[in-house]
């Protein structure tokens, strides 16, 4: 299942100023079944910065809308190569939104520096629900 919402894709600023949107960030949403339960996984690959962060927000918002009862929403960042303060802010916001909606939300990061380092130096590893793998995230939710 491809991502249905993509803010920024209709931007008219792409005329040669920089790389095309899809070169910077690619987002896919897929439903996966696990022995313990189901997860809706939003996989982000590439760079999350001021220019691309709205696409990430839109994909996560669409994920909330598609979430079925008993499912966990997982944001998989293991293919993210750059995470800015805008990306951190978005992760905090979607975490708070999930708490308000009483929906389970998990964020998957591996030990690669581009994602984990900004999260740790800003102390957000205490705020975000972080897991090493999608499987760990699903297991923790059920």
């Amino acid at each position: 299942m491809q991502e249905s919402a993509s803010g920024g894709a209709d931007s008219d600023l792409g005329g040669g100023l920089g790389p095309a949107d899809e070169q910077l960030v690619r987002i896919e949403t897929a439903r996966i079944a696990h022995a313990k339960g189901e997860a809706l996984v939003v996989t982000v690959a590439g760079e999350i910065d001021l220019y691309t962060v709205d696409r990430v927000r839109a994909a996560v918002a669409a994920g909330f809308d598609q979430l079925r009862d008993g499912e966990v929403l997982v944001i998989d960042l293991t293919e993210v190569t750059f995470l800015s303060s805008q990306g951190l802010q978005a992760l905090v916001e979607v975490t708070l939104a999930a708490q308000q909606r009483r929906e389970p939300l998990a964020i998957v990061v591996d030990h690669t520096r581009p994602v984990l380092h900004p999260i740790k130096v800003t102390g957000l590893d205490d705020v975000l629900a972080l897991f090493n793998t999608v499987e760990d995230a699903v297991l923790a939710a059920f």
Partner: protein
Amino acid sequence: MPVTGDPEDTVPPAQLPARSERPRSGGDVAPPRQSRRLLRLELPADPIVISVARQQVRRWLAGLSWPPGQLEDIVLAVSEAVTNAVKHAYLDQPPGMVEIRGGVEATPGGQRRVTIIVRDHGRWRSAPPDDQHRHRGIGLMRACMDTVTIGQPDDGRVGTWVVLRSRTAPPPALGAPDNNEGDDQPC
């Protein structure tokens, strides 16, 4: 609005020092020697160019054989500074340019560090105390660099500059690109 300068060339042609006014034969000429040690970029203050700034700074530091972990820290700090300029500098006026200048210096004990200045010509705005997001960006910069100074340029022109001074790094290994230049001219 075009990006100033060829993306393949760290030094925008308009800013090349006099010594580089030699004929350029075709589009694939090696950048002048100084460009390995000096970084000069001028980009329109638009969100899409932040990734271009990162790419150029990454390439410059790789050319200096900067240690990978530190390299990513510096790229992150520059990205945050450019983002602030893009978001805040030209709020009530037509978007202007963001300048990025970098240089390397030797430090006592045979180490080296880079200093990068990110500058805009917009309106000076200090971060409001309750702007948690903006303070997180500044906190990221401070975590990634040795010192971060944010203020107004001392040449009397309007705008904001962010002076990012890296932690020290060991000199490049023998045979690394930076040593093959044979150019120890300080910058």
